[in-house]
């Protein structure tokens, strides 16, 4: 008696898979957006000459990247009731069609804290890789430190960090699977759900694996396009 594949479960449970895919996409898109912004700020802070800013940023980075993501998610989910602290999340949850607002946002905040710590390190390395002469030239034109960073250093750093930052975005997409441990119905959760209802985990896992591959490939593709746009003029300097 061998194992007989039954791919029809995928059709039967397509609702679950589609909702899962959408939830993963929501987590990923919002997560990438927020962790990029916070990570950039943290990275700029890490490269800062001000002792307290740089200490605070390195404290942020070291804390959040050295604690497992699942622990952070559980800590947030079980010790805070986010919708009580931030009532507006309720509305956002409705807007995003999320069934369990608390779990979703706990997972999202965990993802953002964790990933932005890594992005902070990447951004810092990128900023430090921009030659010091750039800063000096900008300063000698009378730019203030905000203008030096925003107009001159950061645009060049961005170009350098696109490949490692793409990796962090992909990690975030993959790590969004951890939201299932809080009961967020994303893709990995759907796999488990289908398995527990039909014992067709193998088929479900195959489908979900392919969906993840499509998601990560698509993200890499977009980041490649952005990379190409940025490489304009920045070659061989």
């Amino acid at each position, binding site marked *: 008696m061998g194992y007989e594949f039954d791919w029809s479960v995928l059709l039967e449970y397509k609702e679950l898979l589609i909702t899962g895919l959408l939830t993963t996409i929501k987590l990923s898109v919002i997560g990438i957006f927020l962790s990029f912004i916070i990570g950039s700020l943290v990275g700029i802070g890490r490269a800062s000459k001000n002792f307290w800013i740089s200490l605070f940023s390195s404290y942020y980075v070291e804390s959040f990247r050295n604690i497992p993501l699942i622990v952070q998610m559980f800590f947030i989910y079980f010790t805070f009731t986010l919708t009580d602290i931030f009532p507006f999340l309720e509305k956002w949850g409705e807007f995003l069609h999320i069934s369990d607002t608390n779990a979703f946002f706990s997972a999202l905040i965990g993802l953002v804290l964790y990933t932005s710590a890594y992005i902070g390190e990447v951004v810092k390395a990128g900023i430090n890789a921009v*030659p010091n*002469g*750039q800063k*000096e*030239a*900008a*300063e*000698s*034109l*009378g*730019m*203030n430190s905000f*203008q030096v960073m925003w*107009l*001159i250093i950061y*645009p*060049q750093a961005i*170009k350098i960090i696109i490949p490692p930052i793409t990796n962090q975005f992909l990690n975030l997409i993959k790590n969004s699977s951890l939201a299932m441990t809080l009961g967020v119905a994303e893709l990995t959760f759907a796999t488990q759900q289908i398995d527990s209802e039909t014992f067709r985990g193998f088929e479900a896992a195959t489908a979900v694996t392919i969906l993840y591959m499509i998601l990560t490939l698509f993200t890499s593709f977009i980041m490649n396009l952005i990379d190409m746009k*940025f490489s*304009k*003029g*920045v*070659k*061989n*300097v």
Partner: protein
Amino acid sequence: MKKNIIQMKDINKWYGEYHALRNVNFNVKQGEVVVICGPSGSGKSTLIRCINRLEEIDEGKLIVDDQDLYDKKTNINKVRQEVGMVFQHFNLFPHLSILENITIAPVKVKKKNKQEAEDLAMKLLERVKIPHHAHKYPSEISGGQKQRVAIARTLAMEPKIILFDEPTSALDPEMIGEVLDVMKELAKDNYTIVCVTHEMGFAREVGDRIVFMDAGEILEEDTPEEFFNNPKTERAQKFLSEILHH
């Protein structure tokens, strides 16, 4: 008698244990062209970089355009708008086109109208003789052209003082001339210029005064005539014989 636009009094600077500037007293009058020379490691670049506070001094008083640079009330970015700097390695912004390199500071720092800034930039590019490269990127032009763009970028801020930090040292020999030509024109145009360079021909031709430094000290200050014909210190004589016999 013109007033002193740069005044440095008893300046001392250390890098850790290393005494980089020793009791430097140095004044520059408005419209004057001063050339600083000396062996490498003598502190000439450090001195010039102190004038717009790219390097911090440890002791002494530094007044530029009537403003004490180390007064808490002085806005260093305002002073820097009056003091342009041209670097040895150009330091053009690689992510911006030539035109944007020149207009970014006038538009963002001086809040100039964009069209006005671009018109000025085109005029300046013509003045440094590269108007047709305006929309290229720094990586697409030669070293001599880069340095001329850097000069145009500095001029676009309409500074009173221009600092040149070895502007021709990183250039291939055949490109040095084109940059020096532009600098000579500026010298005639009433800018106050402080220039660190090894180009003694340039110093002799346009310099009002030569300053010779060694080991962080100013050893001689004289007119080019006097300095080249009768160097007073032994070290200046040695330096001149080395540099002129190459």
